[in-house]
């Protein structure tokens, strides 16, 4: 767990953000001139457990 001091340090300076998943979070930060890189990521097989399990067995 980060300490209170870490939190203050994180928020005290300029933020550089890597956003994973929903791009809305990245675009909101960008609108506020926050440095952000968006990673286009979705859960395997659209989040479907049955297909994700099969794919795991098939080596993806």
């Amino acid at each position, binding site marked *: 767990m980060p300490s209170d001091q870490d939190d203050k340090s994180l928020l005290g300076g300029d933020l550089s953000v890597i956003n994973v998943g929903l791009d809305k979070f990245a675009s909101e930060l960008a609108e506020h001139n926050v440095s952000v890189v968006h990673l286009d990521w*979705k859960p*395997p*097989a*659209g989040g479907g457990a049955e*297909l*994700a399990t*099969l*794919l795991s*067995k*098939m*080596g*993806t």
Partner: protein
Amino acid sequence: MELIEKANEEAIRRMLGAEPVLIDVVPAGEIVPDLQDKMILHAGPPLEWDRMCGPMQGAIAGITVFEGWASDLEQAVDMASSGDIAFDANHHHDAVGPMTGMTTVSQPVMVVENKIIGNRAYCAINEGLGKVMRFGGNDEEVLNRLAWIRDVLGPAMGKALKDMGGIELKPLIARGLSMGDEMHQRNVACSGLVLRAIASAMARTSDDTTALSESLAFISANDQFHLNITMAMGKAIMDPVRNIEGSSIVTAMSRNGTDFGIRVSGTGDEWFTAPVEMPEGLYFAGYSEADANPDMGDSTIVETIGLGGFAMGASPAVAGFVGAGAASEAANYTYRMGEICAAENPEWTIPSLDYLGVPTGIDIRLVVDSGIAPTINTGIAHREPGIGQVGAGVVRAPMACFEQAVRRLAANLGLS
């Protein structure tokens, strides 16, 4: 899983090792396996008359009159709907056809031989743009053009190809990519290269200067002439990839205007189907999305071998033509398709992408895992029979096809 990885390595080896050559043009009834009189081969997975879309029914009526099985379109529809005409998928007969994909006994088909394996694949000659049978056109103008192709152009091309020993297609495609073609919706470079290759042999083997002049003019005026050659080449490349135990590589994608179907190497010749989607694109003047027919044609064999939407990066001009966004977006289509393919083709490269090889070997596992569906560049037919092409656009293969295939391959391998 090692079995799948090794099987896919073999699939890619066969794809990249193919040596397709356009060797002849022959009446379909003389060469297409198991094609019979009063039998029509169509695009896509098999389907019965009642489920066919308007352009498909229109083309079937037209080709029935063209073959002389009916005296007019009304009688042709009666025959087709009452079981007097047999239907089957082109893919079941080593053949492919664009849009409605009509293949019948008297039509000349181009023959592409894969010299490594010796297998052959067939596709009819491209009729040009606008009101044509592949888009459901079936009036006198359409039938007269087909008769001229049967009587004049087909025999002339066949004589020339035999005389010159055929046209090697892999190097021709490589040049076409460097000249801005993606070989589905842009074939202007490859069509010109074929004309350059065949013209002197056609002149040498012709004894009718009027027919020769008409034939050369027809090829030179048709920017999509090479599409059907690309398709026969694709079928000749992919057929030897079928039936490799454990392979998750797609061997065919095709649509009939009602269903979209895929076949996968490790699951044999079974079709995995789902309803076709509507293309998103641009329309010719006077037409709109309300006029459009759903996705149709065997031409997705082009994407199956890494061209078309997969090679969009080679063809920024086509991105605008099909409404896929700015020219600078074209590269992103190719990069995205690379995420669902097992390999790149070192002989078919895209100069503007630092000679990146086109994405090759669609892996159903990667499609389902990533949620990225294959992107297809396509023409758009009018939904009513007899009108023809109304636009061009982009469409995605339905994810449901790939999900079914994953389940079946897993079951075959005892994983489910």
